[in-house]
């Protein structure tokens, strides 16, 4: 699905990268542990996380993730936004908690990283 479709499903607000909403999201993962993200998340994934520090964006950049959505209405600081903007990584924020965010996307057919691997 596109990032815009995911945004609608999550009732999310765009923090930065509104011009990139047409990008294709292949799968998603929800994690607050960046080392886990680095070890199992595949390229072109949407990351759902409760963390808002610059390391989240760095993680996305290093691991070729497509976009980040912060859960439970969290918003990152200016530095985090600036890094995301310079690296073309869209940031969204949803009022939904982590479990519900993941659940909604999954119900709408967006696979998790381990499922995606099995399918492809």
């Amino acid at each position, binding site marked *: 699905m596109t990032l815009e479709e995911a945004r609608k499903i999550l009732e999310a607000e765009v923090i930065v990268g509104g011009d990139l909403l047409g990008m294709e999201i292949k799968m998603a993962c929800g994690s607050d542990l*960046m080392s886990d993200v*680095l*070890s199992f998340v595949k390229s072109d994934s949407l990351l759902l996380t409760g963390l808002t520090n*610059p*390391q989240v964006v760095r*993680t996305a*950049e*290093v*691991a070729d993730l497509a976009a980040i959505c912060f859960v439970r209405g969290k918003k990152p600081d200016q530095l985090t936004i600036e890094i995301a903007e310079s690296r073309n990584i869209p940031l969204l924020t949803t009022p939904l908690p982590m479990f519900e965010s993941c659940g909604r996307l999954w119900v709408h057919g967006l696979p998790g990283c381990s499922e995606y691997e099995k399918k492809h």
Partner: protein
Amino acid sequence: MIPDNKISKIQELIYEISIGEVMKTNLVTVTAQTPMSKLREILREKRISGTPVVEGDRLMGIISIEDFIKWLANREPDCPISEKMSKDVQTLYADEPLTQAVNKFEKFGFGRFPVLDHESKRLVGLITKGTIVEGLLKKLEIDHIEVEEVYRHRIKHFFDDILADKVSLFFQYDVVGQNFKRAGEGASRLKSSLRRLGLDPQIVRRVAIATYEAEMNLIIYTEGGKIRVRVEPHEIVVRVEDSGPGIPDIEKAMQPGYSTAPEWVRELGFGAGMGLNNIQRCATRMGLHSVVGKGTTLKIHISTEHGVKRETDGIDSQAESGR
């Protein structure tokens, strides 16, 4: 001003490109029997100023807006186009070079030339000054893209062109300990550089992830250190060095989930005891050497050759107790 090499490039192209490559092929034609009174409508509707007159795919003549105006001005009665068209038509062949067309435009001053197939003499297209310009621009654009690809290809095979017994590119990134604002900058800069070298994106990703984890370790546990990266034809080696405090028990440090990180590090999403395991997963080979009180050296080898499987089992580690 147009640089000289651009001019010569176009000059080259008009000899290189054939008329058939640039000519218009979806033609508007009229038959010899079409009445002159219908011509205005055809020219206006198709936004053209002249058109070949055909019978089947055989060229009979050519009729232009000038012929039409002349006919109007003379207030002549309506008649078939065949009576007013130019019958002695100058034509070009599709397999002739573009320069032939340029010469004819100059010589005759006509707005268009029908293009015939050399063998069958059938009408296959039409060439105007506009189609020539369009064709040249398209060709220049394609050439530009090709040049870029060649450039990228060259950078990829940069190593092949260097005659030496050993070739390597070297980058260094200095990491300041405890500076979380800049954490990951080294890995990020390294990643951009490797991408620019045209390396495989999956390999770049593995190098970047391993380097990022190592950089986080430097920031979390040490006063800082250096990340030295050596890019060789078949391998990328990331060497991460610090001057303390050292790892007392490497075997334990390698266990997934084992961590000595304080709570504030965990709040950043790190320090869960997965760093070294992640590095090992990304590496083809990894070496860890540490002396308590002296420092740690981590060597990450990542093969850039295709088809090389990760060796997840081999790690040569060495820990020495502090003195």
